C-alpha cells in the first residue's frame, strides 16, 4: 500500500479529476504511478505535461525513451517502473524478453537504429557516472548527426526518470 493517499478516478475532485479524465481518455486507465502525484495537484499537472510532451514525439523516439525509462529504473532498483516500461516495450514495441534481459547487461544490444543507440549509451553513461562524460562523447554524437537538443532531451529524460523512481521507491507505489 502506498504511503500517501491516492484518490481514484471515481472520487477525485477539482484539478486532480480534470487531469485524471485526460489520462483516462489517453490510456483507458490512470496508473498508480500517476495517481501518486495527486497529493500535489500542481506536481501532478507538471508530471502529466511532461508525459504528454514525450507522447507527442514519433514512435521511434517514444521507443527510445521507453527503453531509457526501463534501463534507468533497472539501474536504480524501481520494480514498478521496470515492470511498467518493460511491459510497454513488449506489448507496444515488440521487444522480446530475451532482448530486455540482454539490454539490462549491455544497453548497446537494444533494438534501436545507430543514432538512437548512441543516444541511449550516452544517457546511460550520464546516469551511471555523469562526471565521466567528456567533449569526446559529445563530438561522437555530433559526428552521427545528433543535435545538442537531442542530447539534452535524452539526458533530461534519464534524469527525470531518477526523480520518478525515487518518488515511487519512497512512497511505495504498488503494481497496477
Amino acid at each position, binding site marked *: 500500500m502506498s504511503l500517501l493517499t491516492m484518490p481514484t478516478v471515481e472520487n477525485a475532485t477539482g484539478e486532480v479529476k480534470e487531469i485524471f479524465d485526460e489520462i483516462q481518455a489517453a490510456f483507458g486507465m490512470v496508473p498508480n504511478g500517476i495517481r501518486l502525484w495527486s497529493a500535489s495537484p500542481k506536481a501532478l499537472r507538471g508530471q502529466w505535461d511532461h508525459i504528454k510532451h514525450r507522447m507527442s514525439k514519433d514512435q521511434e523516439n517514444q521507443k527510445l525513451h521507453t527503453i531509457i525509462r526501463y534501463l534507468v529504473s533497472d539501474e536504480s532498483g524501481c520494480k514498478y517502473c521496470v515492470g511498467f516500461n518493460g511491459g510497454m516495450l513488449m506489448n507496444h514495441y515488440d521487444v522480446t524478453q530475451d532482448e530486455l534481459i540482454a539490454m539490462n547487461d549491455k544497453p548497446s544490444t537494444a533494438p534501436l537504429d545507430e543514432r538512437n543507440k548512441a543516444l541511449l549509451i550516452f544517457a546511460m553513461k550520464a546516469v551511471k557516472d555523469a562526471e565521466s562524460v567528456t567533449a569526446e562523447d559529445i563530438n561522437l554524437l555530433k559526428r552521427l548527426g545528433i543535435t*545538442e537538443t537531442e542530447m539534452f532531451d535524452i539526458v533530461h529524460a534519464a534524469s*527525470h526518470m531518477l526523480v520518478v523512481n525515487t518518488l515511487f521507491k519512497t512512497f511505495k507505489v504498488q503494481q497496477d
Partner: protein
Amino acid sequence: MKLFTKISTITALALSLTLSASATQDPSTQLVKPLISYVSEADAKDDVKAVYAEIKSIWGMVPEPIKGLSLNPKMLRNTWESYKVMGENKNFSEKLGAMMRMLVAEKNNCEFCVGFNKGMLMGMLKVPEDEILALQKDPTTAKLPAKEKAMLLLMLKSTSTPHDVNKADIDGLKKLGWSEKDIMEGVNQATHMVATALFIDTFKIQ
C-alpha cells in the same frame, strides 16, 4: 510567491561567493566550458524569454543551469514550474530549502550546487560557516525548528535510501503538522535536485 521573491536580493551574492571560491580551488574544480550551447538572455525569444523574465523578476538573475534547459523550451517551462511548486509552498522556509539542496548536491557530487547553496546559506541567511560544516558532517545538527528538521531528514533519506522510508516516517511528519501535499512537494523537490546535479555534471554547466 513573496517568499520566493526574497531570494532575489542575495542570489547574486551567493553566485559570486561560489565563483570566487572556485577560483581558488585546485585545477580540477576550476570553471570549464559547458559541453553544450544554450540560449543567452540576450538571444532568448518567445517562451524562453518569458521564463527567463519570470525567473529574473523573482531571483534577480537567471542561473546558468536553468539556462542549460533552454535547448528544449517546453522542458525549461516544465522544470521551472516544478521549482515554483515548493517555492510557493509557504510551509518551507528558504533555509530548509537551501540546506536540502546543499546536502543532496553534496551527496551527488555537484560542486556547483554545493557552492551555490552554501553561498546562499552564508550570504542570505547568515548561517555561520561552522554551523554549515557541522551540518555537512551530520544533518541532524541542522539548526531548524523540529518540524522543519524532520522534513529535511526525510528529504535526505528519500534521496539516499528511498526503500528505507516507511509509514512511521510519514506519520511522524504528519504529527508535526506536515500534510501529504507538503510531503509530496518536499520529496519531489529533493529528487529534482538529484536530477539537476546529474544534468549539470553531464554537460559541465557552471
